[in-house]
């Protein structure tokens, strides 16, 4: 095996080994001290519950994921457009940037009830909440990226009398790419957090119940193994989203950007 291959294998193997060790200790402690499942369920019990309750948890996972992905898509789209607007003129940015910050610093739990009241469709309201949480890193990073143009290259483009559009397409957008992908990584996680928090606030039941609803219900019913199973699904969803963003960023930047080289 090449050194590179061994390195890649270890990169995946090490966290897995750590996880197995920790789960082992957890399992052992629960068994040795005979901890009741309504306090801390053993990993094996959580795993069994995950399988047994899949008919309930699976659809909930799908609901939360749908909210997350819709919010993420909206955040990326609107965030990027906002960033493009900001770099058109200093004055637009100076006038509007404080409001982007306002969006960022206002706790979503505080405004989620309002949004849920104002927006008729609960599902749409949840997407709006999650998008509000996820949009800021996209705006901030993409704006920074679009402004981070090598001054030498900027002079070169001026010398060759590049048009505004040529400058944007050939200089600004490529320069912004590494920052943009950095923003995507943060935003993907935030979209999931936003979706779960909004679900908590909305407390929706019925056919469109997300994972947060399952966590709440399981808590009320002291069905702690199911609570853990739902929590596990939220975590896995977050990790998978993050990994997907890392992969996309690698695909886009692999050949030229320092952050993705020899990774």
């Amino acid at each position: 095996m090449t050194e590179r291959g061994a390195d890649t294998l270890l990169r995946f193997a090490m966290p897995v080994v750590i996880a197995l060790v920790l789960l082992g200790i957890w399992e052992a402690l629960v068994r040795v001290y005979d901890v009741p499942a309504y306090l801390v369920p053993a990993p094996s019990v959580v795993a069994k519950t995950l399988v047994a309750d899949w008919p309930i948890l699976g659809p909930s996972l799908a609901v939360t994921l749908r909210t997350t992905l819709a919010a993420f898509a909206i955040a990326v789209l609107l965030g990027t457009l906002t960033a493009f607007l900001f770099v058109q003129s200093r004055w637009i940015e100076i006038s509007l940037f404080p409001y982007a910050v306002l969006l960022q610093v206002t706790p979503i739990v505080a405004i989620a009830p309002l949004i849920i009241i104002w927006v008729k469709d609960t599902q749409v309201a949840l997407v709006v909440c999650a998008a509000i949480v996820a949009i800021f890193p996209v705006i901030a990073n993409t704006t920074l990226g679009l402004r981070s143009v090598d001054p030498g290259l900027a002079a070169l483009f001026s010398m060759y009398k590049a048009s505004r559009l040529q400058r944007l397409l050939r200089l600004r957008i490529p320069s912004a790419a590494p920052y943009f992908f950095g923003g995507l990584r943060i935003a993907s996680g935030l979209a999931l957090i936003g979706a779960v928090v909004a679900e908590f606030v909305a407390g929706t039941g019925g056919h469109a119940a997300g994972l947060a609803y399952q966590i709440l219900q399981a808590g009320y019913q002291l069905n702690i193994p199911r609570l853990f199973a739902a929590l596990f699904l939220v975590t896995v969803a977050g990790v998978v989203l993050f990994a997907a963003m890392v992969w996309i960023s690698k695909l886009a930047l692999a050949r030229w950007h320092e952050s993705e080289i020899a990774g």
Partner: protein
Amino acid sequence: MNAAEQASRDSLPVPAAPVVSAAGVAMTYRGGTRALEPVDLAVREGEFVTLLGPSGCGKSTLLRILAGLAAPTAGGVAWWEGGIDRVGEAGRKLSFVFQDPTLMPWTSVAANVRLPLDLAGCSRVESDRRVAAALELVGLEGFASSYPRELSGGMQMRVSIARALVTEPNLLLMDEPFGALDEITRARLDADLLRLWSRRRLTVVFVTHSLYEAVFLSTRVVVLSARPGRVVGEVAIDEPFPRDESFRVSARAAAHCKSLADLLAAASGAADARARP
């Protein structure tokens, strides 16, 4: 250079028409810092003129003004005895080579070299032909699809020069292009540049703070003093081309270096005297 090229260079009408000329060009920054005292300079067709001076003498500023990249605060510049709008006409093309390679890291060598043609809306077929020719001129035929970061500093600089040459310029302005390279690479690129200059009948204005490089390359060296920059004299390097590595260490080259060093010393002495209360 072959005999015919040698002959044509020798038989240049003297004096040839000025390609770029500065009249009373001066630069004062906001806040009153004088970067450049009024300078008069005419660079004629086929010349290789080097602006030599210590760091911060305004030689890069002067070069940027000659390129139309910066506007002087006093005086004026003429290109082919006309305004900046003359630049870009057939036979009146100008290219600038920056101190750093200034390449787009996200795209290939070929795409970097093609940039000026793309921005000008040149056809694909024509661009491909010219890019290939430019890469061949700088000896990078095999690296068209490489990315800048995969190349050494010297090779990156060659890409930068290929990009400057791809528009087939008549006037080439170079701002300490080899300053960041090691001595050995620099010597090789110097020699390559001279070959290009004679083969393409370029007019070159070159900025450096190396006496030896100035003597090796130039037909004429203009010496500038430390800030505020002003022209303290010029030395014609009346030595035949082609020049090879033995010229670099010849007694004649040493004599030219000596006269340049004397000019620089006199200038800094005068500056010290002025600075004294």
